């Protein structure tokens, strides 16, 4: 989480969520940047700065699945839970009609347009700053 915040991403949500239809766990990062910048642009910026972040070595950008907080997954869970930081494990739960198995590290509310614009501005500033830093990992 701190690495994603350090990158300026300031995600509204971060969690491991089990996709029951696929039988697979996915690391989901909910960020308003998906709506304001577009998915490709956010991934591209993350790929550019990944080596400059304090992420676990085994975690790559490919492990991250971006979702928009305006989407139904985020809204469904945030209707019941608000997690600023920490860790909450949800097991075999039905939340607002959705079957959820997840480990949630952050899950806050849908940001306002003003807040989303601020997040984008900060992300772009931070990406520029990190571009000048040496990589932390090879």
């Amino acid at each position, binding site marked *: 989480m701190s690495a994603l915040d350090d990158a300026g991403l300031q995600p509204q949500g971060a969690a491991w969520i089990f996709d029951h239809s696929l039988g697979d766990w996915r690391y989901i990062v909910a960020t308003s940047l998906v709506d304001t910048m*577009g*998915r*490709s*642009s956010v991934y*591209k910026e993350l*790929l550019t700065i990944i080596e400059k972040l304090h992420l676990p070595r085994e975690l790559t*950008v490919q492990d991250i699945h971006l979702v928009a907080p305006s989407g*139904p997954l985020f809204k469904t869970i945030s209707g019941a839970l608000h997690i600023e930081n920490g860790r909450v494990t949800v097991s075999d739960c039905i939340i607002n009609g959705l079957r959820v198995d997840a480990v949630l590290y952050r899950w806050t509310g849908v940001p306002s347009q003003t807040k989303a614009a601020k997040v984008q501005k900060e992300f772009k500033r931070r990406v520029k700053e990190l571009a000048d830093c040496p990589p932390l990992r090879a």
Partner: protein
Amino acid sequence: MEAEKALRATGQNWGQVYWHAGFAIEQMIKAIRIKREGFEEWPAADRGAKWHDLELLADAVIKDDLRARRRASITFEAYWLTVRDWSHERRHPGDANPVTRKDGLDLLLAVINSSNGVMKWLQDLYQSV
């Protein structure tokens, strides 16, 4: 520019653009497997939600090719990750997760970009089999 032109041709129905762009990728990956393995059609045993998930599908069919291509270009990798996130369930009018203009344009560009788009690479891969 090319995505905007393509979108205008569709009448800017974002939901349809999104779904068809992603479905084209799904079908292309499946075509590669069919050609590689000499099948006459997609195996009946390999049906279900997993086979519409582009991440799992790519992992099963083109894992090594994709790894090499991703390493060669950050732009391609960003486009692939965008395409990977396509959901075959986002197609119905009145969907709980309606496709926005940005969603549709983003995916379309990732698919059709002439230099680093995913479709061009898959087409080249298909031809090389």
